[in-house]
Structure formats: C-alpha cells, structure tokens
C-alpha cells in the first residue's frame, strides 16, 4: 500500500529536522563534490563516517529489503530523504558505486549468499566498492576488456589492469569485468563479471593525478591475484549481460538505487550570487546585459531539467519518445554543469586567473576547480559523444553509428 500524503508530509518534517540537527559542520578543509573527487584520507574518513550516520538513522536504503539491512519501506520515503539532503546541501554518500550500481545489481542478480554478505555493509559504508570496467586501452569500449581471468579449479587468477578506479585506494570490493575466455566468436562472449575483493595479494591500486592537480582515482594493477569462483555474479562467460544490466543502474534507466545524494549539486543561483560579487569593468558583473542574458539562460536550463524530472513521471506527457528524459539525463546534466562552471570562471574578469589556494581567489577558486572536475561528468561513464549515440539510437531509433 502506498503511503498516504499526510504520512509523507509528516515524514518530510521529521527528515528536515534530522538533517538540520545532524548535518556535519564545515570540516575546515575543502570537501570533494562527488565520490570521484575524493583525494585524501581526511576527506574519505569524514565522508564514510557521515554515510554511516545517515544509514544508522534509517535514511539510506530505505526501500531495500529489510532482511539484508535495508529499510523495507516505500521508495517515496527515500525520495524525500534524498531531496532533503540535496536541499540542505548535506555532504554526499561516498559509497556511490555500492549504493547505486553494485548494490542494486546484487539485489537483482546476486546469490542469496552475496546479498547476505554485501548489502548491509554497502549501506553502512563498512565495505567501500569501486568499479573495474575501463582499461587503459578500451575507455568506452567495455566489450573489449582485456584483463584476464583464468580459471584454476574453483579459483580465478587475475592479470591485467583497470583504470579510472574512483576510490580505488579505499575500496574493499570491485565490480570487475574480465575476460575468462579468449576463444569465442565475438568479444562479448568471453567476459565474466566478478564481485572481487580488493584487499588481497596481487591487487595494487596506484593513484592517478587529475587535471585539477589533485588525486582522485587509481589505476589498479592485477598480478596473479586469486579470487574464488563464488565471486562470479551471473554465469561464467555471461559477463557482458551483467555489465549491460549495471549500466542501466549507472544511467538511472533502472531504479532500485539505495538513494541519497551522490554529488554536491551546483545551482545557477550560486552563479547569480557570484555575478553580484564579481567585478567586471569596474562594475558588478550582474549589471552587464550579456552576463545577465547568459545567467537567464542557465536559470532557464536548470529549471527545464528539473521540470523534466517531474514530467518524466507523467505518462501522458511522454508518449512520443518515452524514456527520452531519462536516457538524456546524464548528457544534459553533465554538459550543463560543465558549461555553468566554465561561465562562472570567466565572468570573474581578471580575477578568473586565480586558482585554488590563492588567498584572493573568489569563492576559494571553487569554480575553476569545478570546471575542471565537471569533465568527470562529460567523460566518465560514457562520454557525452557516446551518450548522444545512445539517445539517438535508442530513443530516436536512428541507425547505429559505425
């Protein structure tokens, strides 16, 4: 039975109060904007503690089955929490891979033992998860994974490397796509998918420096690392299907995520505030008609994307190209974010030349860094160019690009 409106309203009040009371104070160091930006132990520990606190308060995985540690409640409750977290700009839930991709996947296809072993510890952040899809030579071409998984009795021996592993230095487990058979008709048939432990001999995550100058992810080397075959999820050789299923979670085409905010939202209103403060040509930037027009453009686009999310739930207003809004969401929101940050940098006039750690940098240089970090959204998880192929082909039905 769906919860009643009054029940939800009451819950909303309770949640708002809890976050107001429990939201952590400014830690005194710059927090990352998403799990992909976690670069220091200090940041990581702060965020892990916060996620545990939210879980223990009952505000994470609320719609996941209670037998595995979830709340067993209606999704509507979780949605209220997630929206309130965003509204109050509470820090994000750092175990994103676990909460949004691995967790739903395990609930969907995992064995009972896997569910028992992993789900609760994902929610509590006791186990941190990372993703092992990309390799140095196959960025977007997942089907071309080359990391070898050779069966040896009831074990698999892993050799090769994965790259762009966010939280790679901290993760306890990795969702891993590997090649278990090289003798197949198509490259897609030889793949297997594992829930692989990270803290075992032969696995070595090496930090990679980001374009911002900071560290944020790793290249993860596998050198005769041995894992039991109970780590398989889905059948041996059917890893491609599991990966495709994972992508439906990653791209939010399928539901079932644990909830919570996963990146710090950026608001156009923050750039409006910046435009009031920043000077151009000796006047507040907000007085310049061209700056104003661009600000209006960002406000309109932000409103449009937000309204899209509301409209996506109304079937009568999505009859012609159903799924368009959901399928394009990553593309539209990540490109908007990149452009907004870029604009926020340039409207600062001469002072746009400053960077993070400069004493006089406006807003501590967050827009400069935010612009660079925004490429994680337009590149990671399928570049915007690939997203456009996907939308063009799956939503508009255009022929596949070769």
């Amino acid at each position, binding site marked *: 039975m769906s919860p009643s409106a009054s029940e939800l309203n009451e819950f909303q009040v309770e949640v708002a109060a809890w976050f107001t009371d429990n939201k952590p104070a400014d830690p005194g160091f710059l927090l990352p904007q998403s799990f992909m930006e976690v670069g220091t132990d200090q940041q990581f520990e702060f965020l892990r503690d916060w996620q545990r606190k939210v879980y223990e308060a009952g505000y994470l995985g609320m719609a996941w089955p209670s037998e595995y540690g979830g709340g067993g409640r209606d999704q509507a409750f979780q949605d209220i929490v997630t929206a309130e977290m965003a509204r109050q700009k509470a820090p994000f839930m750092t175990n994103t891979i676990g909460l949004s991709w691995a967790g739903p996947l395990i609930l969907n296809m995992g064995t009972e033992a896997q569910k028992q072993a992993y789900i609760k510890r994902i929610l509590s952040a006791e186990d941190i998860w990372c993703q092992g899809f990309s390799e140095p030579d196959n960025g977007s071409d997942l089907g071309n994974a080359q990391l070898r998984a050779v069966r040896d009795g009831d074990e698999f021996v892993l050799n090769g490397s994965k790259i762009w592993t966010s939280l790679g230095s901290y993760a306890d487990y990795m969702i891993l796509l590997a090649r278990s058979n090289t003798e197949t008709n198509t490259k897609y048939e030889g793949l297997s998918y594992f829930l692989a432990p990270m803290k075992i001999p032969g696995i070595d995550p090496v930090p990679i420096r980001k374009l911002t100058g900071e560290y944020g992810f790793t290249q993860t080397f596998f050198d005769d690392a041995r894992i039991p075959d109970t780590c398989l999820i889905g059948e041996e050789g059917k890893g491609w299907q599991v990966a495709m299923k994972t992508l439906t979670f990653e791209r939010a085409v399928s539901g079932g995520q644990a909830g919570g905010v996963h990146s710090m939202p*950026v608001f156009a209103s923050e750039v409006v505030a910046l435009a009031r403060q920043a000077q151009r040509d000796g006047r507040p930037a907000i007085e310049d008609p061209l700056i104003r027009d661009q600000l209006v453009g960002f406000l*309109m686009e932000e409103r449009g994307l937000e309204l899209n999310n509301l409209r996506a739930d109304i079937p*009568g207003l999505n009859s012609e190209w159903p799924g368009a809004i959901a399928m394009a969401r990553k593309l539209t929101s990540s490109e*908007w974010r990149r452009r907004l940050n870029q604009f926020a940098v340039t409207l600062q006039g001469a002072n746009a030349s400053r960077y993070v750690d400069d004493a006089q940098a406006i807003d501590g240089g967050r827009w400069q860094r935010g612009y660079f970090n925004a490429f994680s959204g337009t590149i990671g998880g399928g570049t915007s160019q690939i997203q456009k192929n996907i939308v063009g082909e799956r939503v508009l039905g255009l022929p596949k690009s070769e």
Partner: protein
Amino acid sequence: MTEQTEPSGILFSDEQAQLLEIAATFSANKAPIDAVRRQLAAGDAITGELWREIAALGWLGIAIPEEYGGSGLGLGEVVAIVEPMGRNLLSSPLAATTLAAQAILWGGSDLQKSQWLPQLAGGSVAALALTEAHGDWDLCNLTCSASRSGDMLSLSGGKTFVTDAAMADLFLLSVALEGTPALLLMEKSALGEAALHREVVIDETRRSYGLSLDGITVPAANLLPAANIGGALKGLHLAACLLYAAEMCGGMAGVINITLEYLKTRRQFDHFIGAYQALKHPMVDALVGLEQARSHLYHAATVFHMPSGRGEVAVRMAKAQAAAAFAFASDRAIQFHGAFGFTYDCDAQLFRRRALWCEQQHGDALHHRKHLADLLLD
C-alpha cells in the same frame, strides 16, 4: 538541480490527458500534410467544415465558464489541444478566439459576456487586432486611437498581423482613448469594404491582414469596462505566449519526426544517413531542446494563473525556450534533408516558416530573456 522542487511543478489533469489524446488523433486525421498543403492556396486558413467540427467538439469553449456555454476549464486545457494541432501544422482562429474570450471574461461587462461568450464558445470567430506597424511587443504602445463623439467612438490608425480577419465575426481591438489603453469589441459589420488587406507573411498556413481603422465608428458601449486595461493587455500578451509555446512544442515534435523519417530511409555512401553522427547528434540536441520546452510549457500551463509573478516567469521561459529550440530543430531539418530540403515539396520549410512566425509574434527569445533578467536578477 534547482534549489527546491515546486510542489505545483507540473499538474496534468485527466481532462488534459484526454484532450491531448483526442486532439492528437483529430489533428493527425483531419490535417494530414497533404490537406495542410491543399489549404495553403485557399482563401482561409481552415475550411469552414473543419472549423465547425472543432466547434462541435467544444474546444472553443474550453476556457469559457459553463454559464456562458463553455466547459469551465482553463488555458492549461487549451494548451493540450493547441500542442497537437501545432504538430500537424493545423492553422485556425482557435487561439485568437480563445484569447478574445479570455479578454472579455477578464474585462468585459456582464452584457458583453452574455452576448459574446456563448457565440465564441459555439463557433463564432474572433480576431485579435493588437499589433501595430511599429511591431512593439508591448501591447500598450498604441498609435491607434479612438475619440468620443456622443455615444460613438471614431477610430483611426492601423493594425497589423490580424490573423483570420476575413473569417472573423468579432474583433478585439486595442486603441488609445484619451491617452490610455482601451480594449473594445468591434463587429464585422463595422468594417467597410477596404478596411482589410491581405498581408504576405512567412507562415503560409496563416492568413494575416492589415486593418485600417480610419473612418470606422463603433458604439462606446463596445469598450471593455475593466479598470486596468494595461494589465489586461499584459495578461493577453502572456496568454498568447503560452499558446504560442504550445504550438511551437507541437511543431518541434512534428519537424523532428519528419526529419527522423528521412534520416532513417535516405541512403548515401551505402549508409542510412541517420547513422552519421553529424546528423544524429544534432537530432539529439533538437530532442533535448524539445523535452525542455515541453517541460517549461506544462509548468507554465500549471502556474499560469498563480499570483506573484510566477506565471509570468514560467510563460516567458516557455516561449523563449520553445522559440530557440524550434528555430534550431526546423533550421536543421532543412539542412538535413539535403537538396530535397531546399525544395518547396519538403515539409521542413513549412515548419521553419511556422517557427519564425511563432517566435516573432508576442516577443522573441531575446525579448523574453531580457524581461526574465529583470524579473529574476534585480
């Protein structure tokens, strides 16, 4: 991504859903593209028969209260029929007639309401005579004037872009009266032979007329008695923007659709041309533009009547977004049809012309964004 969700973001009633579906079927059946093209050469924008069918469906009375023969719904429901009509390039005086009725509702006397609203709900055609040669989108900038002589008003000046004037039974007319804006109702019979002249406009599905008021007299009782006609004109302007946004959203879906059809069936260099990213990706951009425009549109339909300026912001955003996105989609439609796109036979041009008309009437994107800047940033 905005700071807070609006509880009334988008409401879409069962009535709207039904109307949208019925109107979509109706428009597709009654205005297939060959019928639209046949009508291009006709004297009126719509056949009398089709107009009577529309009236019989009750669509002219959607936003007219039941006591005056309407359905007692609102402009949000009108949006739901205008959008699918736009998708099929169906052109009619429906929007003008609806808007005239709204003006009478807002500012008319009881007598005017009881005289005209049932007629307009029943199929009489109204034309809006609001715009002048200077083209100012501020409808209070009036050079046409009325002066009293006894119980009569003598009119002078000229109006432009009076669509479907030749079909009109009633004209809603804006004039300066003793220096302030006034709205008045003028019956067809008040016009002399030469008062109307056909204008050549970019959207060939429309019939636009110039209207010369010189020498026309109408009873002073035809004035709308509302105290704040300036406010009513602004409301009329925003309501027109709302319906244009709906028409443009429909048009975008139409033009995206015909272009996709072409890209899926036309082969070049041994590939369907829709496989080329140079065409595929801009089509995705067009779709993304449409999706946002539709969201703005139905949000604007939801909050249109809300106080505190929210409706104005929403409507201006809807029109600005729809105009920009429709311009892009229809411009690319011509280009992506290649040499065929350069011909009159290709329907892309019909949509491009429609997009230009809809953008330029009642304020283009730049205009609305400038107003939005003042509303949102000051």
